[in-house]
């Protein structure tokens, strides 16, 4: 058995230090949400304690801004972009991994390379295209562009799952006369449900978190997504509404945190699986 002293030095102390570093910003956000402006801007008080808790910031967020509309916009874009990407990736990943058609190898590599192209290189020409397609300022511009970073990742992740399904299962079904389409629908899809779930979580959180495209393509207040709405509408010139801003950051993080906390195992499995490929 390890002595307590050595465990203290090798485990407890470093873990505690890391936790303080990683959680401190969340603490700072959470306490700000429940402070009144008077307390927030009083330099004499200890800033790490809530002296008289209040919900006025949350109330301000929900009554003075269209926060719920922004949440809905974000959700709308995230769900649609996720479904499109998931469908396209499932088909593509199956084809590349299992059908072994002539160019399946290079196609897989090409799709993966798409993942390495950062959004900061693409947003200007994309804005040009979106403008020409008359999608400027429309949420559909985001629904159509988000799959560019979702599909490469998803396809790569699902290819790993398809690889783990034994080929014999397909071969047996084929001898029984099942068509390829039915094999895909009735055998492969149910078997890779965990993979589909992981991909769904990834796509949803990535879409929910996206910032640059939403900032570049959307300018009407009512069409904004949450991150853009908060950053652009709650800061007017030199007036910073820190309380409502933190309330917004907290409320907008909750859906992602919830999705993720239920499926953290899938998330980790997906992340590490994709890295190992």
């Amino acid at each position: 058995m390890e002595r307590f002293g050595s465990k203290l030095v090798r485990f407890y102390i470093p873990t505690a230090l890391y936790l303080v570093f990683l959680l401190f910003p969340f603490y700072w956000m959470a306490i700000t949400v429940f402070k009144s402006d008077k307390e927030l801007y009083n330099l004499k008080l200890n800033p790490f304690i809530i002296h008289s808790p209040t919900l006025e910031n949350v109330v301000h967020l929900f009554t003075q801004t269209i926060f719920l509309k922004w949440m809905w916009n974000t959700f709308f874009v995230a769900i649609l972009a996720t479904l499109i990407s998931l469908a396209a990736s499932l088909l593509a990943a199956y084809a590349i991994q299992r059908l072994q058609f002539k160019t399946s190898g290079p196609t897989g590599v090409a799709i993966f390379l798409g993942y390495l192209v950062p959004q900061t290189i693409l947003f200007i020409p994309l804005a040009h295209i979106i403008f020409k397609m008359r999608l400027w300022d429309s949420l559909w511009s985001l629904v159509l562009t988000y799959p560019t970073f979702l599909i490469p990742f998803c396809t790569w992740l699902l290819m790993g799952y398809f690889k783990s399904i034994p080929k014999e299962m397909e071969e047996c079904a084929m001898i029984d006369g099942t068509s390829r389409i039915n094999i895909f629908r009735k055998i492969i899809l149910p078997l890779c449900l965990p993979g589909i779930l992981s991909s769904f979580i990834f796509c949803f959180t990535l879409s929910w978190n996206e910032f640059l495209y939403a900032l570049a393509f959307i300018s009407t207040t009512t069409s904004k997504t949450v991150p853009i709405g908060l950053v652009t509408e709650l800061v007017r010139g030199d007036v910073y509404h820190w309380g409502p801003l933190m309330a917004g950051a907290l409320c907008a993080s909750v859906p992602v945190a919830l999705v993720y906390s239920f499926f953290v195992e899938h998330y980790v499995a997906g992340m590490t699986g994709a890295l190992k490929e």
Partner: protein
Amino acid sequence: MDAVATAEQEIRPSLRKRLSAALENPTFLGFLFVAPAELLLLIFLAYPLLLGLWLGLTDTLVGREGHYIGFANYISLIHDSSFWLTVFNTFLYTVVAVFFKLVLGVGLAVVLNRDFKGKGLMRAIVLLPWIIPTALSAIVFWWLYDSTFSGISWTLIKLGLMDHRINFLGDAWNARWSLIVANIWRGVPFFTIGLLAGLQTINPDLYEAAEIDGAGSWARFRKITLPLLMPLLTVVTVFSTIWTFADFQLVWVITRGGPGGATHLFGTLSFQRAMAGGGHFGEGAAISNFMIPILVACVFIAFIFLRKED
């Protein structure tokens, strides 16, 4: 009428049959299955990539067609001191942040690579900074770096380590370090969780044997952990380098590239010129395009490195 109907009836089954036969052909089905993904990526990824190269050679303004102007955008950038400040800053940001993310990420992975109660919960907590929308955590850092009300300043003054409040974002170097810290905070979880899986595949017998041979913990880390972890470490580092180099959100939300353009990255400068400022799409695209050769080199080096490991 009757003749047409029967003819149709005759054609239909044969058409269906031919279709289902085609669907059994792996090449046809393969192309069909890959088509939606490829189409989306061609229109919204490959085409914009090429269009960006072209836009860099034009004087396009937002919503207005431009004319070919050769390398004028690139030449004017090379003579632009704020562009060189951005180049310097991007490299500083990337090198320092990736280095610390790597060291701290590996460190935390090694610390957590053992069995203890609440391991699952711990992993979930560690991932939080990575999961929470970056724009939102950037807002939190922005507030945390407030020149008057920062809790960091308050603590340092109370501890007697400082006698004045830190002007985090008003001074060029303070702002740079502040952004780097925020980036490290966000990126450590990716390294830790990615590497933790790799660490768990290392056979514990190796450590035991080394310990019997008298190897200390540092020697065990250097001679066993590091070499076995190398391929995964390379992949994780390359991804992180690309993302850090092409970062946008953290800097845009916290400093907007200020003070005085001291914290601009390629991404924020090109946004500034193309969107926030005068709508100079051509110039903005040229700035973005400067990233391409560096990113290609990055991927290429990683590729060679991984090949050698195999």
